[in-house]
């Protein structure tokens, strides 16, 4: 928790804002490749992401808080990922989903794949797997919630 001289009122307000922010992460409808199908699966009935208040997948980057980069980022797509990230309003978060996004994955010896989306946008949570299961992605979102609330994981 917050220590220091912020004063009680600001701290509580900040905490309330953090609580609100963490519980209403609206992801951007942004699927690139294989992982996008698993990202769709977390919306679907079995792994209902709505429980965490994140089912409002917004199509416009202006209205979303969370960009789940789901699937291989190619060099042709990278400037657009950056553009979308810049179009999102602050505070904004990025989850890198899948090894392709983290370091290039199986395609990392090729010529047209970006070796890690963190070269293009700052990433908050990495979810490894190829593709990560919906459970793993849900765990990633919960980790991000904890991160927003300034809680440590252990």
């Amino acid at each position: 928790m917050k220590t220091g001289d912020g004063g009680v009122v600001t701290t509580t307000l900040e905490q309330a804002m953090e609580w609100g922010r963490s519980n209403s992460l609206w992801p951007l409808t942004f699927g690139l490749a294989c992982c996008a199908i698993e990202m769709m699966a977390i919306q679907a009935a079995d792994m209902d992401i709505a429980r965490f208040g994140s089912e409002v997948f917004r199509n416009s980057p202006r209205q979303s808080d969370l960009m789940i980069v789901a699937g291989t980022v190619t060099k042709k797509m990278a400037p657009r990922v950056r553009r979308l990230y810049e179009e999102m309003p602050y505070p904004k978060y990025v989850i890198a989903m899948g090894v392709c996004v983290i370091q290039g994955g199986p395609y990392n010896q090729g010529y047209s794949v970006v070796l890690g989306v963190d070269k293009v946008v700052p990433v908050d949570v990495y979810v490894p797997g190829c593709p990560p299961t919906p459970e793993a992605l849900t765990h990633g979102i919960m980790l991000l919630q904890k991160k927003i609330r300034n809680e440590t994981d252990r």
Partner: protein
Amino acid sequence: MIQEEQKNEHREWTELNMGPQHPSTHGVLRLKVKLDGETVKEVEPIIGYLHRNAEKICELDYYCDSLIYFDRMDYVAAMNMEVGYLEAAEKLLNIPPPERAQWIRVIMAELGRIAAHLVWAGAFGLDLGMLSPFFYCFVQREKILRIFTEICGSRQETNYMSIGGVYQDINENIIYMIEEFTKEFPDKLEEIFNAFVKNDIFMSRNKGIGILEPDVAIQYAVTGPMLRASGIEYDVRKAEPYLVYDKLNFDIPVSYKKDNLARFLVRFEEMRQSVRIVKQAIKKIPDGPYFNPKAKKSLMIRLRGEGEVYARTESPKGEFGVYLVGDGGVKPYRVRVRSPSLRNLSVIRHLGKDVLIADLIAISGTIDLVFGEVDR
């Protein structure tokens, strides 16, 4: 007449860039659309946003390793892609799979086909603005994925088959799961089907929209459900049977209406036929080895192939061909993939003329695009 044409020339068309991030371009398609009001005058698809150089990497890897890149081509139907690659690779390397493995592959490919079509149906509903069928489709798909998980431990990108057979035998538990699935799935499928076709707005959105004449379809080398919806009865499973498809009893769904609705109906009928195939195959599956002893797993990298092989299979999107060229080394010399979605997509230039934006979305929905396969 002439004056009218001149007038049209002077009219300014709005240029609209749809995508690569657009809710209904199914990934990373970018459509450069020229609009006159709401009417689409010209559409130019720009692709390559998911070009992952699979063909190049396959040349750098051993024959057995390349399978994972095929998994990730049509990522919603990984099993079908594996079948497609192995058809070519096994012919090139002269390692035919044993009979049991062939039956297992047929079952898995048909389950994969159902899963792929379910994803398509859900996404197509979303394109048209139907929110709920998506969820009903995904519930059924999860059941198939549970079977896959039981078999190989992975949900989507299965990597289950390997050169010379399959990675693991199927046991009674899995057979029971598949039987249960085939028992209850047809009813659920009808429910989903009715949710679509008993809706007047859905019918009016699709009837007579996006008519694809058969000769145009052949000119653009369209295959799969799109070709069959244009009235040409052609299925690789019948035309050039691979695995054990010639021992199975099933029909090829054809529609002569050529429009969006025809494509929709053909895909749903295909799911029913797939269930029929799985039902037959699960009964007929013979005992025996599931792996060709010639291809011992530990020695896989030493497999050498020479010559040229082109193998075609019927993937959920259409005719999926793999052209393998070997030079006698342990790595393929050239891998070329015939991706059905790429050809099916190219026809949008023809279909997307003088239609409304809403129809363009519906048409691109019925093409069933998966970009891992288009761009590779």
